[in-house]
Protein backbone atom coordinates (compact mmCIF):
# COMPACT_ATOMS: atom_id res chain seq x y z
CA UNK A 1 0.00 0.00 0.00
CA UNK A 2 1.22 3.47 -0.78
CA UNK A 3 1.97 5.49 2.34
CA UNK A 4 1.67 9.25 2.33
CA UNK A 5 4.81 11.33 2.16
CA UNK A 6 3.78 12.99 5.40
CA UNK A 7 3.92 9.68 7.22
CA UNK A 8 7.18 8.69 5.54
CA UNK A 9 8.73 11.94 6.72
CA UNK A 10 8.17 11.05 10.37
CA UNK A 11 10.63 8.47 11.73
CA UNK A 12 9.49 6.06 14.46
CA UNK A 13 10.06 7.52 17.91
CA UNK A 14 13.25 6.75 19.81
CA UNK A 15 11.07 6.10 22.85
CA UNK A 16 9.61 3.10 21.11
CA UNK A 17 13.00 1.45 20.72
CA UNK A 18 13.75 2.00 24.37
CA UNK A 19 10.39 0.65 25.39
CA UNK A 20 11.16 -2.58 23.56
CA UNK A 21 14.56 -2.88 25.25
CA UNK A 22 13.00 -2.38 28.67
CA UNK A 23 10.18 -4.84 27.96
CA UNK A 24 12.72 -7.60 27.27
CA UNK A 25 14.02 -7.43 30.82
CA UNK A 26 12.46 -8.49 34.07
CA UNK A 27 12.78 -6.78 37.44
CA UNK A 28 13.26 -3.43 35.79
CA UNK A 29 12.60 -0.31 37.81
CA UNK A 30 11.38 2.17 35.29
CA UNK A 31 12.08 5.87 35.55
CA UNK A 32 10.98 6.12 31.96
CA UNK A 33 7.28 6.53 32.48
CA UNK A 34 5.66 9.75 31.30
CA UNK A 35 2.48 9.46 33.33
CA UNK A 36 1.49 9.59 37.01
CA UNK A 37 1.82 6.50 39.18
CA UNK A 38 -1.32 7.54 41.05
CA UNK A 39 -4.77 6.53 39.90
CA UNK A 40 -7.45 9.08 39.14
CA UNK A 41 -9.13 10.39 42.32
CA UNK A 42 -11.78 7.96 43.50
CA UNK A 43 -14.58 10.53 43.29
CA UNK A 44 -13.79 11.12 39.61
CA UNK A 45 -13.79 7.40 38.96
CA UNK A 46 -17.13 6.87 40.69
CA UNK A 47 -18.60 9.79 38.73
CA UNK A 48 -17.58 7.99 35.54
CA UNK A 49 -19.09 4.73 36.77
CA UNK A 50 -22.25 6.53 37.83
CA UNK A 51 -22.61 8.16 34.42
CA UNK A 52 -22.36 4.73 32.80
CA UNK A 53 -24.95 3.29 35.15
CA UNK A 54 -27.32 6.09 34.28
CA UNK A 55 -26.78 5.35 30.62
CA UNK A 56 -25.01 8.59 29.75
CA UNK A 57 -23.28 7.04 26.79
CA UNK A 58 -24.21 9.35 23.94
CA UNK A 59 -22.20 12.05 22.18
CA UNK A 60 -21.87 15.43 23.80
CA UNK A 61 -21.73 18.81 22.06
CA UNK A 62 -18.71 18.97 19.74
CA UNK A 63 -16.95 21.33 22.08
CA UNK A 64 -17.76 19.23 25.11
CA UNK A 65 -20.49 19.45 27.76
CA UNK A 66 -21.29 23.02 28.57
CA UNK A 67 -21.13 22.47 32.34
CA UNK A 68 -17.64 21.05 31.91
CA UNK A 69 -16.56 24.04 29.83
CA UNK A 70 -17.93 26.32 32.55
CA UNK A 71 -15.99 24.41 35.20
CA UNK A 72 -12.85 24.63 33.08
CA UNK A 73 -13.33 28.38 32.69
CA UNK A 74 -13.59 28.72 36.47
CA UNK A 75 -10.63 26.40 37.02
CA UNK A 76 -8.17 28.22 34.77
CA UNK A 77 -8.86 31.57 36.44
CA UNK A 78 -6.24 30.50 39.00
CA UNK A 79 -3.69 31.12 36.23
CA UNK A 80 -5.31 34.48 35.37
CA UNK A 81 -6.70 32.92 32.22
CA UNK A 82 -10.17 34.27 31.35
CA UNK A 83 -12.02 32.37 28.63
CA UNK A 84 -15.65 32.27 27.60
CA UNK A 85 -17.04 28.73 27.92
CA UNK A 86 -19.25 29.18 24.85
CA UNK A 87 -16.78 30.58 22.38
CA UNK A 88 -13.27 30.14 23.66
CA UNK A 89 -12.97 26.62 25.11
CA UNK A 90 -12.98 23.24 23.42
CA UNK A 91 -12.80 19.87 25.17
CA UNK A 92 -10.67 17.33 23.32
CA UNK A 93 -9.56 13.72 23.46
CA UNK A 94 -6.49 14.40 25.52
CA UNK A 95 -4.41 17.54 25.15
CA UNK A 96 -2.69 15.54 22.38
CA UNK A 97 -5.73 15.83 20.15
CA UNK A 98 -5.89 19.56 20.86
CA UNK A 99 -2.26 19.95 19.78
CA UNK A 100 -2.82 17.93 16.61
CA UNK A 101 -5.99 19.80 15.69
CA UNK A 102 -4.30 23.13 16.36
CA UNK A 103 -1.44 22.26 14.04
CA UNK A 104 -3.90 21.46 11.31
CA UNK A 105 -5.99 24.55 12.04
CA UNK A 106 -3.12 27.06 12.07
CA UNK A 107 -0.36 25.61 9.88
CA UNK A 108 -0.38 25.70 6.09
CA UNK A 109 1.91 23.60 3.89
CA UNK A 110 5.30 25.24 3.92
CA UNK A 111 4.68 27.21 7.14
CA UNK A 112 7.48 27.06 9.60
CA UNK A 113 6.78 26.14 13.21
CA UNK A 114 9.47 26.78 15.80
CA UNK A 115 9.72 23.94 18.30
CA UNK A 116 11.98 24.54 21.31
CA UNK A 117 13.85 21.40 22.27
CA UNK A 118 14.30 19.18 24.14
CA UNK A 119 10.56 18.75 24.23
CA UNK A 120 7.71 16.29 24.14
CA UNK A 121 8.02 14.10 21.08
CA UNK A 122 4.65 14.86 19.42
CA UNK A 123 5.16 18.45 18.31
CA UNK A 124 7.52 17.83 15.40
CA UNK A 125 5.41 15.01 13.91
CA UNK A 126 2.32 17.17 14.48
CA UNK A 127 3.84 19.97 12.42
CA UNK A 128 4.83 17.53 9.66
CA UNK A 129 1.43 15.84 9.55
CA UNK A 130 -0.06 19.32 9.10
CA UNK A 131 2.28 19.87 6.15
CA UNK A 132 4.46 22.40 7.94
CA UNK A 133 8.20 22.53 8.43
CA UNK A 134 9.46 22.19 11.97
CA UNK A 135 12.26 24.48 13.04
CA UNK A 136 14.19 23.17 16.05
CA UNK A 137 15.10 25.79 18.66
CA UNK A 138 17.59 24.24 21.06
CA UNK A 139 17.36 25.47 24.64
CA UNK A 140 20.41 25.28 26.84
CA UNK A 141 21.43 23.62 30.06
CA UNK A 142 23.14 26.81 31.27
CA UNK A 143 19.72 28.52 31.17
CA UNK A 144 18.09 25.61 32.97
CA UNK A 145 16.37 24.85 29.66
CA UNK A 146 14.22 27.96 29.73
CA UNK A 147 13.65 29.41 26.25
CA UNK A 148 15.34 32.76 25.69
CA UNK A 149 15.12 35.57 23.16
CA UNK A 150 18.63 34.69 22.06
CA UNK A 151 17.77 31.01 21.56
CA UNK A 152 14.95 32.06 19.25
CA UNK A 153 17.16 34.43 17.32
CA UNK A 154 20.04 31.96 17.06
CA UNK A 155 17.70 29.38 15.55
CA UNK A 156 16.29 31.84 13.03
CA UNK A 157 12.81 31.72 14.53
CA UNK A 158 11.95 35.16 13.13
CA UNK A 159 11.17 33.31 9.91
CA UNK A 160 8.64 31.08 11.68
CA UNK A 161 4.88 31.44 11.57
CA UNK A 162 4.18 29.76 14.87
CA UNK A 163 5.95 28.81 18.07
CA UNK A 164 5.26 25.81 20.29
CA UNK A 165 5.88 26.24 24.01
CA UNK A 166 5.85 23.53 26.68
CA UNK A 167 6.42 24.74 30.23
CA UNK A 168 6.54 23.09 32.72
CA UNK A 169 8.55 21.02 30.32
CA UNK A 170 8.62 17.38 29.43
CA UNK A 171 11.41 16.08 29.44
CA UNK A 172 13.49 18.58 31.43
CA UNK A 173 11.11 19.59 34.22
CA UNK A 174 12.03 23.21 33.44
CA UNK A 175 9.59 25.99 34.22
CA UNK A 176 9.50 29.59 33.02
CA UNK A 177 8.73 32.59 35.17
CA UNK A 178 6.64 35.53 34.00
CA UNK A 179 9.72 37.60 33.37
CA UNK A 180 11.41 34.86 31.36
CA UNK A 181 8.22 34.46 29.33
CA UNK A 182 8.16 38.23 28.71
CA UNK A 183 11.33 37.91 26.62
CA UNK A 184 9.71 35.22 24.52
CA UNK A 185 6.52 37.28 24.21
CA UNK A 186 8.56 40.22 22.98
CA UNK A 187 10.09 38.09 20.22
CA UNK A 188 6.70 36.67 19.35
CA UNK A 189 5.12 40.14 19.03
CA UNK A 190 8.03 41.49 17.02
CA UNK A 191 7.80 38.69 14.48
CA UNK A 192 4.05 38.17 14.60
CA UNK A 193 4.01 34.50 15.56
CA UNK A 194 1.11 32.34 16.69
CA UNK A 195 1.83 30.61 20.00
CA UNK A 196 0.74 27.07 20.82
CA UNK A 197 1.36 26.76 24.55
CA UNK A 198 1.13 23.26 26.00
CA UNK A 199 0.58 23.78 29.74
CA UNK A 200 -0.49 20.25 30.59
CA UNK A 201 1.88 20.21 33.61
CA UNK A 202 0.77 23.62 34.95
CA UNK A 203 -0.63 22.14 38.17
CA UNK A 204 2.71 20.43 38.83
CA UNK A 205 4.75 23.51 39.55
CA UNK A 206 6.82 23.49 42.73
CA UNK A 207 7.77 26.42 44.92
CA UNK A 208 6.05 29.01 42.72
CA UNK A 209 3.01 29.75 40.61
CA UNK A 210 2.61 28.63 37.03
CA UNK A 211 2.69 31.54 34.58
CA UNK A 212 0.94 31.33 31.23
CA UNK A 213 2.30 33.28 28.29
CA UNK A 214 -1.30 34.02 27.25
CA UNK A 215 -1.58 36.40 30.20
CA UNK A 216 1.20 38.67 28.95
CA UNK A 217 0.37 41.90 27.08
CA UNK A 218 -0.61 41.37 23.46
CA UNK A 219 -0.44 37.59 23.73
CA UNK A 220 -3.99 36.44 24.35
CA UNK A 221 -5.12 37.16 20.80
CA UNK A 222 -2.30 35.11 19.28
CA UNK A 223 -2.08 32.21 21.74
CA UNK A 224 -3.85 28.90 22.17
CA UNK A 225 -3.31 27.23 25.56
CA UNK A 226 -3.53 23.45 25.96
CA UNK A 227 -4.23 21.73 29.22
CA UNK A 228 -6.04 18.64 30.41
CA UNK A 229 -6.76 16.15 33.12
CA UNK A 230 -4.05 13.57 32.45
CA UNK A 231 -1.21 14.85 34.57
CA UNK A 232 -2.78 16.96 37.32
CA UNK A 233 -5.64 14.55 37.99
CA UNK A 234 -3.80 11.34 37.04
CA UNK A 235 -6.36 10.60 34.33
CA UNK A 236 -4.10 9.76 31.35
CA UNK A 237 -6.16 6.77 30.21
CA UNK A 238 -9.40 8.72 30.26
CA UNK A 239 -8.07 10.86 27.43
CA UNK A 240 -9.41 14.29 28.21
CA UNK A 241 -7.88 17.65 27.49
CA UNK A 242 -8.91 21.10 26.39
CA UNK A 243 -7.78 24.15 24.51
CA UNK A 244 -8.34 27.81 25.36
CA UNK A 245 -8.04 30.54 22.78
CA UNK A 246 -9.68 33.41 20.94
CA UNK A 247 -13.13 32.53 19.55
CA UNK A 248 -11.87 32.47 15.97
CA UNK A 249 -9.09 30.00 16.82
CA UNK A 250 -11.30 27.67 18.84
CA UNK A 251 -13.94 27.74 16.15
CA UNK A 252 -11.31 26.77 13.54
CA UNK A 253 -10.12 23.92 15.75
CA UNK A 254 -13.69 22.81 16.26
CA UNK A 255 -14.19 22.58 12.52
CA UNK A 256 -11.55 19.82 12.41
CA UNK A 257 -12.44 18.29 15.77
CA UNK A 258 -16.13 17.86 14.84
CA UNK A 259 -15.19 15.71 11.83
CA UNK A 260 -12.22 13.90 13.35
CA UNK A 261 -13.62 13.18 16.81
CA UNK A 262 -17.20 14.43 16.97
CA UNK A 263 -16.81 14.88 20.72
CA UNK A 264 -14.39 13.88 23.44
CA UNK A 265 -15.27 10.69 25.37
CA UNK A 266 -18.46 11.27 27.34
CA UNK A 267 -17.56 9.06 30.31
CA UNK A 268 -14.31 10.95 30.72
CA UNK A 269 -16.18 14.25 30.63
CA UNK A 270 -18.25 13.17 33.61
CA UNK A 271 -15.10 12.13 35.46
CA UNK A 272 -13.51 15.48 34.65
CA UNK A 273 -16.53 17.42 35.85
CA UNK A 274 -16.29 15.70 39.22
CA UNK A 275 -12.51 16.08 39.30
CA UNK A 276 -12.88 19.84 39.00
CA UNK A 277 -15.75 19.91 41.48
CA UNK A 278 -14.25 17.94 44.34
CA UNK A 279 -10.72 16.64 43.80
CA UNK A 280 -8.57 19.67 44.56
CA UNK A 281 -7.25 18.04 47.77
CA UNK A 282 -6.10 14.95 45.90
CA UNK A 283 -4.27 17.08 43.37
CA UNK A 284 -2.58 19.00 46.18
CA UNK A 285 -1.55 15.74 47.87
CA UNK A 286 -0.15 14.28 44.65
CA UNK A 287 1.78 17.48 44.04
CA UNK A 288 3.17 17.33 47.57
CA UNK A 289 4.36 13.78 47.01
CA UNK A 290 5.95 14.60 43.65
CA UNK A 291 7.70 17.52 45.28
CA UNK A 292 9.24 15.27 47.94
CA UNK A 293 10.40 12.82 45.32
CA UNK A 294 11.75 15.69 43.26
CA UNK A 295 13.87 16.90 46.18
CA UNK A 296 14.91 13.32 46.85
CA UNK A 297 16.18 12.57 43.34
CA UNK A 298 17.88 15.96 43.04
CA UNK A 299 19.76 15.44 46.28
CA UNK A 300 20.70 11.90 45.27
CA UNK A 301 22.08 13.16 41.94
CA UNK A 302 24.08 15.79 43.80
CA UNK A 303 25.47 13.11 46.12
CA UNK A 304 26.56 10.88 43.25
CA UNK A 305 28.08 13.78 41.37
CA UNK A 306 25.66 13.95 38.42
CA UNK A 307 25.07 17.58 37.42
CA UNK A 308 21.38 18.36 37.48
CA UNK A 309 19.67 21.75 37.44
CA UNK A 310 16.80 22.27 39.85
CA UNK A 311 13.78 21.28 37.79
CA UNK A 312 10.71 22.93 39.29
CA UNK A 313 7.92 21.42 37.26
CA UNK A 314 6.24 18.29 35.88
CA UNK A 315 7.67 15.05 37.30
CA UNK A 316 10.99 14.95 35.53
CA UNK A 317 14.59 15.62 36.37
CA UNK A 318 17.15 15.97 33.60
CA UNK A 319 20.63 15.08 34.87
CA UNK A 320 23.73 15.23 32.73
CA UNK A 321 25.15 11.83 31.99
CA UNK A 322 27.86 13.13 29.68
CA UNK A 323 28.66 12.04 26.14
CA UNK A 324 26.55 9.36 24.54
CA UNK A 325 23.26 9.36 26.44
CA UNK A 326 21.79 6.48 24.42
CA UNK A 327 24.68 4.26 25.34
CA UNK A 328 24.55 5.38 28.96
CA UNK A 329 20.84 4.54 29.16
CA UNK A 330 21.29 1.18 27.43
CA UNK A 331 24.13 0.16 29.75
CA UNK A 332 22.25 1.37 32.80
CA UNK A 333 19.34 -0.81 31.75
CA UNK A 334 21.54 -3.81 31.00
CA UNK A 335 23.74 -3.63 34.08
CA UNK A 336 21.42 -2.24 36.74
CA UNK A 337 17.91 -2.87 35.45
CA UNK A 338 16.94 0.78 35.60
CA UNK A 339 15.13 2.27 32.63
CA UNK A 340 15.48 5.98 31.87
CA UNK A 341 14.95 7.73 28.56
CA UNK A 342 18.02 9.20 26.79
CA UNK A 343 17.67 12.98 26.44
CA UNK A 344 18.54 13.02 22.75
CA UNK A 345 15.21 11.32 22.01
CA UNK A 346 13.60 14.67 22.81
CA UNK A 347 15.54 16.60 20.22
CA UNK A 348 18.33 19.14 20.00
CA UNK A 349 19.85 20.12 23.33
CA UNK A 350 18.83 16.87 25.02
CA UNK A 351 21.97 14.95 24.18
CA UNK A 352 24.22 14.07 27.11
CA UNK A 353 21.21 14.01 29.45
CA UNK A 354 18.73 11.51 30.81
CA UNK A 355 15.05 12.04 31.45
CA UNK A 356 14.33 10.73 34.92
CA UNK A 357 10.64 10.43 35.71
CA UNK A 358 9.92 10.47 39.43
CA UNK A 359 6.31 9.39 38.93
CA UNK A 360 7.25 6.24 40.81
CA UNK A 361 6.73 5.13 44.42
CA UNK A 362 9.34 6.18 46.96
CA UNK A 363 10.62 2.66 47.60
CA UNK A 364 11.35 2.03 43.93
CA UNK A 365 12.81 5.48 43.60
CA UNK A 366 15.25 4.84 46.45
CA UNK A 367 16.34 1.52 44.98
CA UNK A 368 16.67 2.99 41.48
CA UNK A 369 18.85 5.82 42.79
CA UNK A 370 21.08 3.33 44.60
CA UNK A 371 21.46 1.38 41.37
CA UNK A 372 22.26 4.49 39.35
CA UNK A 373 24.85 5.42 41.96
CA UNK A 374 26.40 1.94 41.72
CA UNK A 375 26.44 2.30 37.93
CA UNK A 376 28.03 5.74 38.01
CA UNK A 377 30.65 4.76 40.58
CA UNK A 378 31.22 1.26 39.17
Amino acid at each position, binding site marked *: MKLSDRVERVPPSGIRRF*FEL*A*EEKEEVISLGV*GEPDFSAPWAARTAAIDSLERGRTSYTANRGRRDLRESIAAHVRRYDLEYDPDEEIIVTTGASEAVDVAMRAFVDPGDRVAVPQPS*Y*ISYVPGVIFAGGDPLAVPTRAENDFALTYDDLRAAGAEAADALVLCYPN*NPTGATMSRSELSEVAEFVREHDLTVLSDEIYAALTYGGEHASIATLPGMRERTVVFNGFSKAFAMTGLRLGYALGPAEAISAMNRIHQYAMLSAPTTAQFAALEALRSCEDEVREMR*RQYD*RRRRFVLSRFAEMGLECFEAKGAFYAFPECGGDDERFAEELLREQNV*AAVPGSVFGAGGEGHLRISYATGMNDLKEAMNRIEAFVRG
Partner: protein
Amino acid sequence: MDAKRELLDLLLSNARESATDLARQTGLDEAEVEALIEELESDGVVRGYKAVVDWDRVDEEHVQAEVELNVELDRETGYEEIARRITKFPQVSSLRLVSGNYDFAVDVEGKSMHDVSNFVSEQIAPIPEVTQTVTHFVMETYKERGIEFGDRDGDDRLSVSP
Protein backbone atom coordinates in the same frame (compact mmCIF):
# COMPACT_ATOMS: atom_id res chain seq x y z
CA MET B 1 3.67 23.74 55.30
CA ASP B 2 6.39 24.35 57.88
CA ALA B 3 9.26 21.92 58.25
CA LYS B 4 7.96 20.23 61.38
CA ARG B 5 4.53 19.67 59.89
CA GLU B 6 6.11 18.36 56.69
CA LEU B 7 8.16 15.86 58.70
CA LEU B 8 5.07 14.79 60.60
CA ASP B 9 3.37 14.17 57.27
CA LEU B 10 6.25 12.06 56.04
CA LEU B 11 6.37 10.04 59.25
CA LEU B 12 2.62 9.49 59.02
CA SER B 13 3.08 7.78 55.68
CA ASN B 14 6.23 5.90 56.66
CA ALA B 15 7.58 6.03 60.22
CA ARG B 16 10.64 3.98 59.26
CA GLU B 17 11.99 6.61 56.90
CA SER B 18 15.62 7.28 57.85
CA ALA B 19 16.78 10.76 58.84
CA THR B 20 18.96 10.75 55.72
CA ASP B 21 16.03 10.07 53.40
CA LEU B 22 13.83 12.53 55.27
CA ALA B 23 16.51 15.16 54.75
CA ARG B 24 16.70 14.36 51.04
CA GLN B 25 12.95 14.72 50.65
CA THR B 26 12.53 17.91 52.63
CA GLY B 27 15.68 19.79 51.75
CA LEU B 28 16.55 20.08 55.46
CA ASP B 29 19.85 18.77 56.68
CA GLU B 30 20.05 15.59 58.66
CA ALA B 31 20.81 17.26 61.99
CA GLU B 32 17.76 19.52 61.59
CA VAL B 33 15.59 16.51 60.83
CA GLU B 34 16.80 14.71 63.92
CA ALA B 35 16.29 17.77 66.11
CA LEU B 36 12.76 18.34 64.81
CA ILE B 37 11.79 14.71 65.32
CA GLU B 38 13.13 14.88 68.83
CA GLU B 39 10.95 17.94 69.41
CA LEU B 40 7.92 16.15 68.01
CA GLU B 41 8.60 13.32 70.41
CA SER B 42 9.38 15.38 73.49
CA ASP B 43 6.34 17.62 72.92
CA GLY B 44 4.25 14.46 72.87
CA VAL B 45 3.05 15.05 69.31
CA VAL B 46 4.56 11.77 68.14
CA ARG B 47 3.59 9.21 70.78
CA GLY B 48 5.22 6.18 69.25
CA TYR B 49 5.97 4.14 66.14
CA LYS B 50 4.25 0.81 65.55
CA ALA B 51 3.90 -1.58 62.66
CA VAL B 52 0.54 -2.01 60.93
CA VAL B 53 0.09 -5.77 60.98
CA ASP B 54 -2.21 -7.95 58.91
CA TRP B 55 -2.87 -10.64 61.52
CA ASP B 56 -4.39 -12.95 58.95
CA ARG B 57 -0.91 -13.45 57.62
CA VAL B 58 0.66 -14.22 60.98
CA ASP B 59 0.69 -17.86 61.91
CA GLU B 60 -1.14 -17.52 65.23
CA GLU B 61 -4.56 -16.79 66.60
CA HIS B 62 -5.31 -13.14 67.10
CA VAL B 63 -8.70 -11.65 67.80
CA GLN B 64 -9.75 -8.03 67.73
CA ALA B 65 -13.01 -6.53 68.91
CA GLU B 66 -14.57 -3.12 69.04
CA VAL B 67 -16.46 -2.63 72.25
CA GLU B 68 -19.12 0.03 72.76
CA LEU B 69 -19.25 1.19 76.33
CA ASN B 70 -21.94 3.14 78.11
CA VAL B 71 -21.11 4.69 81.45
CA GLU B 72 -22.92 6.62 84.12
CA LEU B 73 -21.11 9.58 85.60
CA ASP B 74 -21.50 10.85 89.13
CA ARG B 75 -20.20 13.83 91.07
CA GLU B 76 -16.87 12.16 91.87
CA THR B 77 -16.30 10.24 88.66
CA GLY B 78 -15.93 11.78 85.19
CA TYR B 79 -14.91 10.33 81.83
CA GLU B 80 -11.25 10.98 82.62
CA GLU B 81 -11.29 8.78 85.74
CA ILE B 82 -13.05 5.94 83.98
CA ALA B 83 -10.75 6.19 80.96
CA ARG B 84 -7.66 6.18 83.13
CA ARG B 85 -8.77 2.91 84.66
CA ILE B 86 -9.57 1.25 81.35
CA THR B 87 -6.41 2.31 79.51
CA LYS B 88 -4.29 0.43 82.04
CA PHE B 89 -5.40 -2.97 80.70
CA PRO B 90 -2.85 -4.31 78.19
CA GLN B 91 -5.73 -5.92 76.24
CA VAL B 92 -7.07 -2.44 75.40
CA SER B 93 -5.29 -1.18 72.30
CA SER B 94 -7.26 2.00 71.90
CA LEU B 95 -9.82 3.93 73.87
CA ARG B 96 -11.79 6.88 72.63
CA LEU B 97 -14.62 8.99 73.95
CA VAL B 98 -17.12 9.34 71.13
CA SER B 99 -20.36 11.12 70.34
CA GLY B 100 -23.52 9.18 69.62
CA ASN B 101 -25.33 6.26 71.24
CA TYR B 102 -22.51 5.19 73.48
CA ASP B 103 -19.71 6.90 75.36
CA PHE B 104 -16.48 4.99 74.79
CA ALA B 105 -15.22 3.04 71.78
CA VAL B 106 -12.71 0.48 73.00
CA ASP B 107 -10.48 -1.67 70.83
CA VAL B 108 -9.63 -4.91 72.55
CA GLU B 109 -7.18 -7.56 71.39
CA GLY B 110 -6.64 -11.11 72.58
CA LYS B 111 -5.62 -14.61 71.61
CA SER B 112 -9.15 -15.96 71.19
CA MET B 113 -12.79 -14.90 71.21
CA HIS B 114 -13.04 -16.52 74.60
CA ASP B 115 -10.13 -14.43 75.82
CA VAL B 116 -11.71 -11.21 74.63
CA SER B 117 -15.22 -11.94 75.86
CA ASN B 118 -13.86 -13.02 79.23
CA PHE B 119 -11.87 -9.84 79.46
CA VAL B 120 -14.92 -7.69 78.67
CA SER B 121 -17.22 -9.52 81.03
CA GLU B 122 -14.75 -9.91 83.88
CA GLN B 123 -12.72 -6.71 83.71
CA ILE B 124 -14.75 -4.06 81.92
CA ALA B 125 -18.41 -4.81 82.66
CA PRO B 126 -17.93 -4.93 86.45
CA ILE B 127 -16.52 -1.39 86.60
CA PRO B 128 -19.20 0.35 88.68
CA GLU B 129 -19.80 3.24 86.23
CA VAL B 130 -20.19 0.94 83.23
CA THR B 131 -23.85 0.39 82.46
CA GLN B 132 -23.67 -1.48 79.18
CA THR B 133 -21.18 -3.14 76.84
CA VAL B 134 -21.68 -4.26 73.24
CA THR B 135 -18.86 -6.31 71.74
CA HIS B 136 -18.28 -6.46 67.99
CA PHE B 137 -15.72 -9.02 66.94
CA VAL B 138 -13.69 -8.04 63.91
CA MET B 139 -14.28 -10.54 61.14
CA GLU B 140 -12.15 -9.05 58.39
CA THR B 141 -9.88 -6.02 58.12
CA TYR B 142 -9.77 -4.25 54.78
CA LYS B 143 -7.89 -1.13 55.70
CA GLU B 144 -5.99 -0.10 58.80
CA ARG B 145 -4.61 3.36 59.51
CA GLY B 146 -4.68 4.28 55.84
CA ILE B 147 -3.14 1.05 54.59
CA GLU B 148 -5.21 -1.27 52.40
CA PHE B 149 -4.91 -4.97 53.20
CA GLY B 150 -5.99 -6.45 49.87
CA ASP B 151 -3.54 -7.82 47.35
CA ARG B 152 -1.63 -4.99 45.84
CA ASP B 153 -2.50 -3.96 42.32
CA GLY B 154 0.48 -4.19 40.01
CA ASP B 155 1.74 -1.23 38.05
CA ASP B 156 0.23 -1.74 34.63
CA ARG B 157 1.65 1.36 33.02
CA LEU B 158 3.87 0.99 29.96
CA SER B 159 7.43 0.68 31.24
CA VAL B 160 8.60 3.51 28.99
CA SER B 161 6.30 6.19 27.60
CA PRO B 162 6.70 9.72 26.25
